[in-house]
């Protein structure tokens, strides 16, 4: 199990909040881990693909189709980004 440092997690979190604001129109500071596509009106399957590309570009890694499949909530996206960026 990889340990992720607190400072890199909070940097990731900040960057993700910016992405959530830009692509999903979720104001900064209001995104919660439990939020799913059903809770966020602008989060449809097309926006989801834009989100993936934005995350890949921002964090400089490539997501596999299996990983993309797990990105069902903002919390799941955060966990995945933290794990991938620590790898």
């Amino acid at each position, binding site marked *: 199990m990889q340990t992720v440092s607190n400072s890199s997690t909070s940097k990731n979190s900040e960057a993700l909040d910016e992405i959530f604001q830009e692509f999903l129109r979720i104001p900064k500071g209001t995104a919660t881990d439990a939020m799913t596509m059903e809770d966020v009106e602008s989060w449809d399957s*097309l926006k989801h*693909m*834009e989100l993936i*590309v934005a995350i890949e570009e921002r964090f400089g890694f*490539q997501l596999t*189709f299996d990983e993309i499949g797990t990105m069902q909530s903002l919390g799941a996206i955060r966990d995945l980004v933290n794990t991938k960026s620590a790898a």
Partner: protein
Amino acid sequence: MLALKGKVCLVTGGASGLGLEIIEQLLREEAVSVIFDIESEGFRALQNRPDLAVFKCDVTDEEQVANSIKAVTEQFGQIDVLVNNVGILYSAPLISFGGGGLKLHDSSEWQRVISTNLSSAFYMTKHAVQAMLTRRTKGVIVNITSISARGNAGQSAYSAAKAGLEALTKVWAKELPVFGIRCFAVAPGFCDTESTHVAVNETILQDTIKRVPLKRLGKTAEIAAFVVAGIKNDYLNGKVLEIDGGLVI
């Protein structure tokens, strides 16, 4: 501008007519040129060409499409350009009255034309884009439509299929740029190909030529050059480029 040298370019129906001309021009650009076609004289004639990869694939069959795309990516690593060129011309009025009385447009012909000209491009693009995404290839999709997409009398199925393909061009041009993939269409007018001479009666063809301001049929080399120029131009997306000697203005 996209340099085509070494890029993997796949042309459906590339064993004859316009598709083959596109392939020849891509080869001149030093692209890795791949053809999907069905068993035919043209297909057999290309079997021994060392500069080409020719796959037997009926593009109306999604399973064959998926397997053949997989085979291309295994052999060449990726797909950079897809040209959806397969098409069959079919003319019949919706309803006509002949010696045998009332005749209605055959529904099985409708299905065949829609499947060959429209569904095939949907299957091909779906699987090619999946391959592009897997490798994060910034690809190009080209759809060969026709000026008939505007609605030609006597061509319900062909016009509908080509108009559908033009609609898909616009949809994909909006959906796919986020992945770095763009899409455009080329809509030729009447060209001097064997398929035109087989499908269009000589009197009608001569009348059509009279209506073309340039007073002649298009050459496949002229259409293919347009296709290749569009592939190379990174700013082209979502447009249907008509090339018809001015027949439709």
